[in-house]
């Protein structure tokens, strides 16, 4: 085939210049063919190589989980939800305060807030939780107020606050400057204008990332399983691993995992809906 750089490509036989000389449609067809072959080969390998009876016995032996009910829901899931929500409440309020400090005209506040964010975003959440769970009672010379829930709320809440502070800050900065100016021109103080005009609009902007933070916290509540906690305080991961050890079977992990997904998947769908709605409102 002859191609000339000087003549205009013409007619239906127009080809895009490429090494292979294939039309885009031909190339797409070949690419699809390759992809489906790889997929089929992969599936075949899995089917042939996996020991299915063993898999069923290890992960789907629901007889081994009979003892888990109803405590799985009445204790473990309930505790997971309580830990998550209390840490979220701490993270939300503290995060908002830190965000406002980050935007303060006082350099000391900005600096303090930045140090806070860097520390608690930089530390592993598990370490922060252990420092609060084990270290704080020693420092206080007694148990943390609110017991286990209090310690978890503070430990995981500090980490969540660091992330939420950055989200709030971005949301506040996304509110047009004219909003604050209009409020000030009506005689509102800076604080009044922030709370009545700017923050309500910022909250709307950050609803999707804040919901996402709830999902992350829900999963991070599993870190509580690493603290030595009384039976009444057991959450999903701890319960799953206790039963897995007792029954020498991994199905309790699967059951606990399903409990997480029951909550996180709908929340994830909600986040995507909220994001789509905001994208459309733009």
């Amino acid at each position, binding site marked *: 085939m002859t191609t000339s750089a000087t003549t205009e490509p013409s007619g239906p036989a127009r080809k895009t210049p490429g090494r292979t000389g294939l039309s885009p449609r031909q190339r797409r067809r070949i690419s699809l063919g390759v992809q489906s072959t790889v997929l089929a080969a992969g599936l075949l390998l899995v089917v042939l190589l996996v020991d299915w009876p063993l898999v069923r016995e290890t992960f789907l032996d629901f007889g081994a989980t009979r003892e888990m009910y109803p405590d799985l829901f009445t204790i473990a899931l309930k505790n997971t939800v309580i830990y998550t929500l209390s840490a979220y409440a701490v993270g939300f309020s503290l995060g908002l305060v830190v965000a406002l400090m980050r935007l303060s005209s006082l350099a000391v506040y900005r600096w303090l807030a930045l140090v806070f964010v860097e520390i608690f975003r930089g530390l592993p959440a598990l370490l922060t939780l252990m420092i609060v769970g084990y270290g704080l009672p020693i420092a206080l010379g007694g148990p943390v107020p609110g017991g286990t829930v209090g310690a978890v709320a503070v430990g995981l809440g500090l980490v969540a606050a660091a992330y939420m502070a950055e989200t709030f800050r971005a949301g506040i900065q996304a509110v047009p400057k004219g909003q604050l100016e*209009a409020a*000030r*021109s*009506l*005689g*509102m103080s800076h604080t009044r204008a922030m709370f009545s005009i700017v923050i*309500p*609009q910022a909250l709307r902007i950050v609803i999707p990332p804040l919901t996402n933070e709830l999902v992350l916290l829900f999963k991070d509540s599993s870190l509580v399983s690493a603290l030595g906690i009384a039976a009444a305080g057991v959450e999903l991961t701890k319960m799953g691993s206790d039963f897995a050890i007792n029954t020498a079977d991994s199905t309790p992990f699967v059951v606990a995992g399903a409990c997480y997904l029951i909550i996180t998947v709908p929340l994830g769908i909600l986040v995507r809906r909220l994001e789509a709605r905001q994208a459309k409102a733009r």
Partner: protein
Amino acid sequence: MTHMVEIRDLHKSFGALEVLRGIDFTVDQGQVICIIGPSGSGKSTLLRCVNLLETPTRGQVFVEGEELTHPDVDIDAARRRVGMVFQQFNLFPHLKVLENVTIAQRRVLKRGKAEAEKVARDNLAKVGLADKAGSYPAQLSGGQQQRVAIARALAMNPDLMLFDEPTSALDPELVGDVLAVMRQLAEEGMTMLVVTHEMGFAREVADRVVFMDGGVIVEEGPPEQVIGDPQEDRTRTFLRRVLDPTSS
């Protein structure tokens, strides 16, 4: 007699950029002053210095005899007496029209709900939007939004109104409604400081026109003089460009 507004030797710099380079002028009770001038000449900055949305670098601003540039002044209290209307309306998008007009009355003037709503409805009726109280700003046209913004400012019973190019963001067919409201306001005796490119409005309504260029007042006087028979070359050049945009 104290002036409604008095500005003495006002300077404003943004970093190295000197935007206002010594402004002096006064506005008396009931006067309408139109400020005209090319883009970047400092008109908005001057207006924003009057209610201290911008802090002057040097000089003094007095409103009703009170020096707003004094460090001890309660600026929030002073701003209640000075309404401002922005080019981009700046309505609060998360609040309904009625709430836009009541929120500052309630939070700042501490008026009760019933009183604030009555004042709001009266002012919405005045700008021809009594039927829009329950709408959100996004559901209104630009001209309607700007009239709500005027009602919002008026609801605070200001002694002075500042307008920064209130019609510049509007489609041409919506400009008339907003100017009509402003004209009515002027007739009722409101003291107004208006930055505008609407020469027709300035000619008809202004008691005095101020032409600014390069951060200073180049020429000021009654409209028939500044617009009709300008004395300065810079004013003439500017007016030629504004009045006949095709001959640039």
